[in-house]
């Protein structure tokens, strides 16, 4: 497996593709890695209760140290075929995680694009199984949540039932009962 190209870019569900990177932690960097992860968790977008990660095209992100802190998993769900964005990762998202990747093998400043590609592709493993419970991109999900919030506000209005009687609002009335 390793950088087996036939398995890239992994499994896609609708517009979203799974993306997992398995790194080797630099010897002796376990504690520093944990500290970097705690710092990340305290940063805007990653704090408990925050939902605005600085990277807008991923649904979630997790960093999992494992095997006694000798390995690190980064797993996410990416809107779009992530391999098309490889060069972009180098200039944008990778930098945001700089403090974490400092502690993994192969991240030595990434002087060239080739080194970035090697860094990502040597760590990437395609999932053997991947499924999603909802469709849509992050942008659509956020919009849907906003629209629902607005709809709930409408329903809280005492005149809502009467207003929703209009034929044009029928689809909304159909989902207003619970």
């Amino acid at each position, binding site marked *: 497996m390793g950088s087996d190209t036939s398995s890239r870019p992994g499994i896609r569900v609708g517009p979203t593709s799974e993306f997992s990177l398995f790194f080797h932690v630099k010897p002796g960097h376990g504690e520093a890695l944990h500290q970097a992860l705690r710092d990340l968790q305290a940063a805007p977008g990653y704090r408990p209760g925050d939902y605005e990660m*600085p990277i807008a095209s991923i649904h979630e992100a997790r960093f999992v140290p494992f095997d006694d802190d000798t390995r690190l998993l980064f797993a996410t769900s990416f809107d779009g075929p992530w391999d098309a964005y490889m060069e972009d990762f180098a*200039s944008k998202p990778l930098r945001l995680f700089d403090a974490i990747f400092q502690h993994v093998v192969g991240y030595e400043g990434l002087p060239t694009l080739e080194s970035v590609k090697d860094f990502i592709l040597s760590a990437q493993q395609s999932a053997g199984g991947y499924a999603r419970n909802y469709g849509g991109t992050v942008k659509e999900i956020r919009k849907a949540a906003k629209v629902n919030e607005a709809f709930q506000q409408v329903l809280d209005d005492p005149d809502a039932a009467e207003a929703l009687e209009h034929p044009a609002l029928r689809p909304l009335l159909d989902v207003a009962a619970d």
Partner: protein
Amino acid sequence: MSTLPPGSVHGPVDTTATGMSPALEIDDIQSGALHERPSPYVGTYLLLKVHEPADGRELIRRLIPLLQPGRELTEPGLGAWLTVAFTYEGLKVLGVPQDSLDSFAPEFQQGMAARAAEIGDVGANSPEHWEKPLGTSDVHIALAALSPDAAHLDAVVDRARRAQEQMPGVEVVWRQDCYQLPTGRTSFGFKDGIGQPTVEGAGTPPTNRGELPIKAGEFILGYPDETGGMAPVPTPDVLGRNGTYIVFRKLHTRVAAYRQYLHDKARTREEEALLGAKMVGRWQSGAPLALAPDEDDPALGADPARNNDFGYATDLRGFTCPAGSHARRANPRDSLDHENSVDVRLHRMIRRGTSYGPPLPDGVLEDDGEDRGIIFVFAGAHLKRQFEFVKTQWLNDGIFIGAPDEKDPLVGATDGSSPFTIPQHPIRRRLPDVPPFVVTRGGEYCFAPGLRALRWLADLTT
């Protein structure tokens, strides 16, 4: 001039540019890439098949004096620009060694026809329907001649043809003439060729103050690029350096269908013009919606100091210019910066498109059967992350704007079932089932070498 080892800094260092990039070897770069075509223009594209490698190489030798490297067409010695480019098959036939061929971008080696499924040339756009010999192994050399007037064009095409006629082992297999329509617009009625990146060190002033000049290595091989590195330069260095990849596509425009569509969806001529502008991102005059939200402003459209000087950061929801419009998709400018997923500067391109075919007379909504459209020409250092990325991620798909079902309403690879959304108060307008307005007639991925490289090719002995 002698050949320099790879990676060596050559020529004087351009200290005016940021980041101390090495100065462009303007005299070694074919002029078509770095300089605007004349306007108005007439032009001819010729595709050649090489039967006898020795004749092909002799032709290159004779064409070299006709090329005007890097220069603006200010003192027209010849009065026309000639650009010479090669397909992978062409380089192979001319005797370029295999290890050198292998050093070119994989997409170039495959050729455009082999990339068809990837880039959305499917259905009516697929290579099996292309105009022959486009997309076949018979296309070896591409010649483009552009001139401000027919007399000068004829003169240079004649010279090129004479050079070719004395070479029986080289055959002209395709010819396409093009000319700017009297209106100065392309077949759909829009001014084209406005939005262009400013190339660092090329000497042209920036037109968009919101976009710092793009590193020359994004367009010309052998120079630092936006990643801080350099695009892979084909080997040997003398062949790759100062070259650029060229994408050339003949795109038929279904002008009557387009007009009929606007006519059906709009009640007045003003509404038609607005809908057309919402689909393109600019009014017909070239005035950008971002600066002229409500009505066309021909003075703005005609003013090169203003017509490209804008961004979308204050219009993220697209009330002024829809995120799905053609120009905003093709260059989202600053609208994605806050998302931290994509670096727009890695996906820029130089465009050198021209028009072909007669205009459909004003007001006509019936198809007259004429072939008309644009010859789309791209120049850049990366077929994949520039041309193919823009085509696949931004034009043929809508994931990046949170509308996976939508495609570019003007040029997207569509089967006619994609919607187009126009944000507006109080209620957005959604047009379902936008029909296809553009049909791919064929195209090629080419490589336009520098002048030294052309001499190297002419001197091959294999």
